[in-house]
C-alpha cells in the first residue's frame, strides 16, 4: 500500500483550481462552444439527496463521458438534462441547467420542446413495436418536420445511414423494429433520436446490454456522430470512456469529483478518488 502511495502524482495532493464547471485540463483540439451549463444542481428523491450541487460545462460537438460507481448519480444527472426525472414522482430539483441561454427547468420551458432538442438513447434498446420505418419516421412526423411522403422517406434513409444501419435494413423497412438483433435495435434507437435533428444526444449506458462487436460498432458511430451532435454518455466501462470521450466527468456519491480531458483523466487523474476508481480499487 505504501509503495503505491508514493507513486501517486503530486497533482492529487493539490488539484488545480479550475473555473467553476470547467474541466481541469482543456483538450486544445476539441470544440469549446458551450452546449449545456450546469450550476449548483441538486436533486432529491423524496428525502434522499442524489445530486449535490453539481457544476459542469458541456461543450458542443464533443463526447462527454460520465463515469463512476453504481448509484453515484450519473444517470440521474443525465436525465436532468432532458427532464426525464419529471416522470418520477417525488423528485425535487434545484439549481440551474442552462441550454441556449434558457433555464430548462423553468416553468415556461416546455419539456416537449426540450426533448425535441435533447434526444435520448436508453440502456436497453427499446424500439417501438412498429416497423423499422415507423420507428424513425414517427417523431419527425409528430413534430411536423416533414409533410410530404417523399421528404419522409428521404429523412428516414438519412437517419438510418447516419446511424450506420441503412445497408442492413433497407430491404426490410416494413419489418418490426423488434425483429432486429440487439445491436441493430440500439442503432435503430439512435436513428430514431437523430431523425428529429436534436442538438444533444444523451446516451444512458448504450452498450451495456450489447455484445463486444455491437459495442465497437456503436462506439465508432459515436465518434462519427459527434461531428453533428453533442453527445453525453453514461458508461460503466472505463475503457469505453477512454476510447470515445473527449471529456470525462467522474461522479461519486452525487458529486462530480473530477472533470477533465479524457486523456488527462486516464493518464494522470488529479484526484485520489478518481485514480482509485480508474485503477480498479473500487467500483
Amino acid at each position, binding site marked *: 500500500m505504501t509503495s503505491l502511495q508514493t507513486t501517486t502524482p503530486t497533482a492529487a495532493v493539490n488539484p488545480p483550481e479550475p473555473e467553476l464547471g470547467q474541466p481541469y485540463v482543456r483538450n486544445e483540439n476539441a470544440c469549446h462552444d458551450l452546449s449545456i451549463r450546469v450550476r449548483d444542481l441538486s436533486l432529491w428523491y423524496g428525502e434522499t439527496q442524489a445530486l449535490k450541487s453539481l457544476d459542469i460545462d458541456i461543450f458542443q460537438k464533443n463526447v462527454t463521458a460520465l463515469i463512476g460507481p453504481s448509484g453515484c448519480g450519473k444517470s440521474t444527472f443525465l436525465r436532468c438534462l432532458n427532464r*426525464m426525472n419529471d*416522470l418520477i414522482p417525488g423528485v425535487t430539483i434545484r439549481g440551474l441547467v442552462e441550454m441556449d441561454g434558457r433555464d430548462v427547468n423553468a416553468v415556461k420551458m416546455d419539456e416537449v*420542446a426540450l426533448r425535441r432538442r435533447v*434526444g435520448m438513447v*436508453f440502456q*436497453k434498446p427499446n*424500439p417501438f413495436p412498429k416497423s423499422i420505418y415507423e420507428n424513425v419516421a414517427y417523431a419527425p412526423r409528430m413534430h411536423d418536420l416533414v409533410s410530404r411522403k417523399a421528404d419522409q422517406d428521404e429523412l428516414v434513409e438519412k437517419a438510418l445511414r447516419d446511424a450506420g444501419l441503412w445497408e442492413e435494413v433497407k430491404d426490410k423497412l416494413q419489418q418490426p423494429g*423488434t425483429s432486429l438483433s440487439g445491436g441493430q435495435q440500439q442503432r435503430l434507437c439512435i436513428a*430514431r433520436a437523430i431523425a428529429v435533428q436534436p442538438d444533444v444526444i444523451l446516451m444512458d449506458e448504450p452498450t451495456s446490454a450489447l455484445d463486444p462487436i455491437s459495442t465497437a460498432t456503436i462506439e465508432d458511430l459515436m465518434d462519427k456522430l459527434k461531428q453533428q451532435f453533442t453527445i453525453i454518455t453514461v458508461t460503466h466501462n472505463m475503457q469505453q470512456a477512454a476510447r470515445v470521450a473527449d471529456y470525462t466527468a467522474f461522479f461519486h456519491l452525487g458529486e462530480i469529483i473530477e472533470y477533465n480531458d479524457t486523456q488527462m483523466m486516464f493518464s494522470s487523474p488529479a484526484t485520489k478518488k478518481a485514480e482509485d476508481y480508474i485503477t480498479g480499487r473500487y467500483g
Partner: protein
Amino acid sequence: MSQTFDDISAQLRRRHRRSARLKWISMGALGLAGLFLVLFFADMLSKGLPAFQQAYVQVELEYNEDAQRMGREAMEPEDAKIVSRSFERLIPGMLRDDPDLLGTTETRWVLANGEVDQYLKGHRSKLSETERQAVDEKVENGQVALKFNTTFFSQGDSKMPERAGIMAAAVGTVMTMLVTLAIAFPIGVMTAVYLEEFAPDNRLTQIIEININNLAAIPSILFGLLGLAIFINFFGVPRSSPLVGGMTLALMTLPVIIIATRTALRSVPDSIRHAAFGVGCSRWQVVRDHVLPLAMPGIMTGSIIGLAQAMGETAPLIIVGMVAFIPDVSASFTQAATVLPAQVFTWAGEPEQAFVEKTAGGILVLLAILIFLNATAVILRKKFERRW
C-alpha cells in the same frame, strides 16, 4: 452425526406420499367440477333441443263467411282442436287483408296446439284419448309432424307455448348491450387511462381506486335500484326500455372495464413510455400512439368478458322493468323490451309443461351467445397480441 441415505429416504417417502395425496385431491376437485359441467350441459341439451322442433299439422282451410269472425270456422271441428289457437286468430285478419281469399280453399301446414306438440315429444299432455287417436292417425298419414321450429327463432313471447319465441328477447339483448358498450367502454377506458397515465399518486386517487375496486363487488341488484332511482325516477328514462337497461348494466360493467384496462395499461413496459417521451411526445401522444395500441388486446378481452357478464345479468333488470311480457320485437331503444336471461326467467315461471323445453332452449341460445363472445375475446387477444 450425519444422516444416512436410508434416513433421508424414509423422510422423503412421507413427503412424496403427502404431495401425491394433494395431487389426487386437486385432480378429484377438477374432475368433480368437470362432471357437474358435463351433467349441466347434458341436461340442458336433452331438455332444450326438443324446443328447436315444433309440431305442425296439415289442415284443409275453407275461407267462408263465418271465418271472418271466428277463425276456427274455416276448419273441420276435429282439426280445430289440434291447431294452435294463435293460428285461428290470424284467419280473420288474413281475410281482411286479402278479400280475394273469401270463398277459396287451401291445404297448408300450420302450427299445432302445444298439447299435440308435447304428446308427440312423449311428454305429459292434456289431450283426451280420442284426440290422441286422431293425432296418431294423422301422424301415420303424414298430416302431423315435428318440423324445425322457425317460430322459436322469429317470434316474441306468447302465452301459448307453441307460439312463444326467443327473437324479441335476443333483439332486446343486442340493443341493451349496444347501449352498455357505448356508455361503459369509452368512460371506462378513459377513466383507466387517466388513473394510470395522468393522475398523480395521492390520497384522492387512492380513494377513487379503492372505491372502483369495491364497486366491482357490489351485488348487481343494487345497480338496478340505482337505475330505478336515478335513470327512471329522476331523469325520466322510459322504463323497461333497452336504454334504461343498458345504462343500468353500464354502471355494473364500468368497474370491470376500468380494472381490466388498468391491468392492460400496467402491463405495457415503461421502456416504451420512456422511448416515446424521449423523442418528445406529449403525455397524450404517448398514450394514444404507443401505450393504448399495445394495451388494446387486453382492454378488448376485459371488456368483452365484462359485457358477457352483463349479458347474463337478470337481477338489476327486474328492478328497471325489463322482465316483462314482450310479444313483439321492439323497434327502438325507448320501447319496452326484454333480454334473454329475463325471458328464460319468465318462461321458468310458466305453468304449462311445454314451457319447460322453451326455458331450456332459451338457456341454450344464451349459452351459445356467451361462448361465442368469450371465444371472440380469446381470438382477439391472440390476434392483436404483440411482442416487444
